């Protein structure tokens, strides 16, 4: 496997950088941690990297709304290099606050989806929710989720369903994770385009029951990817499920490769080809 060059963005209030760095190290990468101000002053730093990760936290306190101020910084200083990164085959992973930032910059869902179609806002329960969720991988498009299928599916542009369902378990910990679209049609259209990457599901595969859907996201959307499949944002935390002892049921049943770690492994196998 070729080495993959990974950059992790840090900013005031980002607080999951340590575990995200560790996840990348666990899967064999040697990630660099860079402050957003340093990037803004020298955007060409981005040219050296293949994957940018925006970890979770409360960037700038999530004052005004989650991710808004960091999104503003990225949009005003890093628009061109971020686009260039995607154009040359790179990827972006936004976790929790990072996902909110990606949506608020318009990098997700991106492409021909008009602005003002999707947002991430306050949970339906109006409070912070910390719990483990079960998600179904809802697209074949995403390099972070199904690295082997991505190539083929990106060319077919039709039917993004997996032949065999894949479920992932991770914790959510957020107050503003509800994915809302401008209309129900916009949610359907995202799904048809294969841009809905992950959906919350309960044990009967319903995606609209609480607390299986912890925040009231429309259509159970837990994560979105862009049309290249190389930009993924998700509310749940793969970075909090990298060891078998993270799973809430580990004391009762044996754990395999943690689902969270799998996301980082997938990225390594896709970009390390």
């Amino acid at each position: 496997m070729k080495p993959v060059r990974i950059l992790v963005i840090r900013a005031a209030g980002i607080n999951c950088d340590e575990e995200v760095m560790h996840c990348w190290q666990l899967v064999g990468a040697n990630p660099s941690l860079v402050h957003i101000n340093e990037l803004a002053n020298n955007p060409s730093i981005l040219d050296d990297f293949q994957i940018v990760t925006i970890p979770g936290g409360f960037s700038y306190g999530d004052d005004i709304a989650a991710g808004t101020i960091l999104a503003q910084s990225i949009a005003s200083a890093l628009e061109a290099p971020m686009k260039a990164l995607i154009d040359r085959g790179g990827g972006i992973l936004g976790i929790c606050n990072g996902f909110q930032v990606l949506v608020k910059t318009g990098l997700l869902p991106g492409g021909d989806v008009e602005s003002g179609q999707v947002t991430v806002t306050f949970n339906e329960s109006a409070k912070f929710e910390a719990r483990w969720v079960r998600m179904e991988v809802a697209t074949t498009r995403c390099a972070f989720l199904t690295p082997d299928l991505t190539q083929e599916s990106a060319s077919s542009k039709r039917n993004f369903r997996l032949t065999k369902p894949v479920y992932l378990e991770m914790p959510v910990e957020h107050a503003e994770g509800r994915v809302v679209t401008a209309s129900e049609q916009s949610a359907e259209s995202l799904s048809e385009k294969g841009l809905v990457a992950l959906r919350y599901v309960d044990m009967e595969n319903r995606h609209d029951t609480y607390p299986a859907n912890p925040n009231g996201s429309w259509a159970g959307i837990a994560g979105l990817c862009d049309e290249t499949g190389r930009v993924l944002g998700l509310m749940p935390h793969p970075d909090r499920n990298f060891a078998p002892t993270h799973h809430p049921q580990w004391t009762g049943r044996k754990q395999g490769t943690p689902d969270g770690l799998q996301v980082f492994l997938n990225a390594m196998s896709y970009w390390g080809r």
Partner: protein
Amino acid sequence: MMGWQKNQICDKVECTGGAPNPSMDTHRIAEKQPPSEMHLWCVRVRPRSSELDGHARDVLTDVHQLGLAHIERVHSSKIYFLAGELDAATAQNIAAVLLTDPVAEEFEVSPGMVERQGSIPTIEVHPLPGVMNPVALSALQAARKLLATHTHLQGSLSKVETGRRYEIVGAQSANELERIASQILSNSSVERWFIDGLERHDPLPSELPTPSIAPFELRHVSLRSLNDDELKKLSRTGHLFLSLPEMQTIQQHYQKLDRDPTDLELESLAQTWSEHCVHKTFKSEINYKGDDFGKDGQVEVHFGNLLKDTIAAATFNLDRDWCLSVFEDNAGVIAFDDDYGIAFKAETHNHPSAIEPYGGAATGIGGCIRDIMGCGLGAKPIASMDVFCLAPPDFDESRLPKDVIHPRRTLKGVVGGVRDYGNRMGIPTVGGAIYFDERYLANPLVFCGCVGLIPRDKIDKQPNPGDFIVVAGGKTGRDGIHGATFSSAELTDTHADEFSHAVQIGNAIEEKKVLDAQLLARDHPTGCLFTAVTDCGAGGLSSAVGEMGILTGASVDLEKVPLKYAGLRYDEIWISEAQERMVFAVAPENLEDFLAIFAAEEVEATTIGQFTSDKKLTVRYNEHIVGQLDMQFLHEGLPKAARNATWSAPKNKTETAAKCRSHEANLNPTEQLFAELSELNTASKEWVIRQYDHEVQGRSVIKPLVGPEFGPSDAAVLRPRYDTDQGLALACGLCPELSDIDPYWMAIAAVDEALRNAICVGGNPRRTAILDNFCWPGVDSEESLGALVRACRGAYDAAMAYGLPFVSGKDSLNNEFSMSPEEAKRTGLPKTISIPPTLLISAVAIVEDVNRCVSMNFKTSDHCIAIASAPVNRVGLREAMELHHKVSKLICSGKVAAAHDVSDGGLAVSIAEMCIASGLGATCDVASNTFSDSLFDPISTTYLLEMPLKDAEQSGFPIIGRVCTDSKLTIHRDGSEFINAEVCELSQAWREPLQRGGR
């Protein structure tokens, strides 16, 4: 084309989406061309539909809980006031791009404040001037950045303020609106509200408020000629809260100096000598006369220094080599491994939380985190624990004393404060407890604990003469004055007005930035860039600089201290507790690098003085010396008090004990089990726990809720280092109900509970350290002091017997509330409400291998359930210790599938909890010769252990039953059926009571 459209600036912006609403009829900005000079714009942002207005739904629930069931709906909106040289188009753009979510929200911009439109009554809430407002600060910075990066936007911003507006549909009177405003939507110590509707119209202010400015004037306090009564009066009216002998000592000192003290000097002494800072009761000389400790008979015991002779004596007598720093620093430190130590500290923040629960709890956890950051050269905080003692949330509204916040609101507030501060800091809140008792009504207790990881070579610190004094982080304002002395006062029904200045709102992100910068400076490639650090505690710079310079001396120029706004007096700058601020000692050669790191992290760091070698604390303001104190007198001048203490057991022991169980007596055992599970102290705290991020940092091993059905874990386990399997168990013990019987046993029970909770998950009792947090009603009487002595002695005896060193502690000794006789009569409450003597024991235990940790949920049907019991109050400390060690050995050997301690609600409740957590059932037969208690009595030093048959038999512990798949709990007593219940129904009874923070 890719994204970004949302951030494009448009010439014209309209409210996005949603049907036009008559009450939001947008002002036509274009028609009202504003002047180009200073202007105030009001931006209102509201959810696009009521479906997206979760906050309003939450408020509506609270309104209904207040008894106003006829209120139909609530609509909420956020308000931003933008002040500056700003034209309409620019204000519109800031609103559209920055302040409004394009999908979920819509906005309107109007010039000036906006009166009510339409017929729905409104309540508008604004923060009081000078109160920390992180959202306003962030919005100001972001808007300025927007103006700077989009050159076609005109204007500049001088200030942003925020507010909230609510429309209350269905309100019938202005009185109702006032109740909603004051009891749900705002807190008058930090906010003000304006009602408009139902024949009431509070005019909105015409401009944003600014705090008053005081001109410089050096003030002396004429102290030398005062008589004793005048000294006492000065102590109270000046909020010094010093005793007469202390005031006399100060008087004599200044008589010798032949001058009067400046106000700043007197304030510095009061802060440094406050109970909060110096723990003078604990350090006093005490003659105890009363019941013996743990034995029958009477004794007389002399304590030269209560703390040194009990709590600290245990630590020094045990002399564990893994205790690296005890009772000296802001936190205690124990060894974790060869590279790292664990810093551990718990604080209380009771009085601020009584007045403003949200801000009080938030700044409480913020302060405790700063203790960890200020330990050694800085530990990295990795977990928090929070314990609340409150009155029951269903307390009768009509009996609430004036100026006391209803416990349901207090609960919501303190949970919200811990949640918003801890979550934002990125520190998981992994454990804690909530204990309900009516006596906490006016004095809720908020305990905040924090654990940090510190490299072992960063534990020592000492500033050198010539080092610069650098303050970093939050600026100083008028909020937070008198925090230390206030906490040493008794609360009364006028306290909210008198001490509102001691209440602050936190800004977690500021503290997070300081932490990031501090760790970068600590771990700088050329070595740590500072020689010492401490947090700004309740006494502000006065105590921080005073403590750091104790061996050297220090000189400070107060005009250099960054202020939130101009006009603070020099003494206010000196004593105000600025949140999110640390004080560093930086050698001259490192100053440039140090300041560069803080600047890069966007943290304001300012040199305000220097450490000296004159052993004096010299404070200047614009070249005037406004105070000069001998370090010697400041820190050692406090006269030592000698007190008498006494205690004798209450006559009616059984009655006191029975009082704890409030429900009806004539229930059958199954019914009683349901009732016990619904007791607030036993019931599920899931509603609280799920609001806390308990997994950030990726160190979680055992979570606060465990098993497929989420039962109550005994303790939390973390993996502090990603690269090793060694863990850390965090647990607590709290048994205030036993204080009514004997504080000696209360303390032992608390230590025992903390230890067995830690053992249950896999903690090693030979590597466990504990903390003490005493919250006492008062210590003025010999009896209350006697109760404190007994608790200290109990803590000592338990710590010695179990081998658990205390490494740090804290006390809050004035938790009484007095009201007028009329108010007492109206409410039917005693004229003085005193909390029960309360001791929180927090434990941190090393876990050798996290892969061997155990959770309390049953795992496998047909496994045996064994009981390990040696109640310390019956068999004594030695036998109890042996049991703890035996159980621990069994758990760490990997033979135990589930372990749970028996506490509130007794054996039956503990078995039920293990069923509830797992969804599995159990069949038990408890012979009275193996376990003689009623199955519902609280009992100490008792464990339930699930093991395979062979291991259970080998363990030697009595087997009382087995786990089964049929989801039914049956308990027989000596062969006859005692309890028979469906686990799912038990589960419901346990989950229901606190589902939404109380009925």
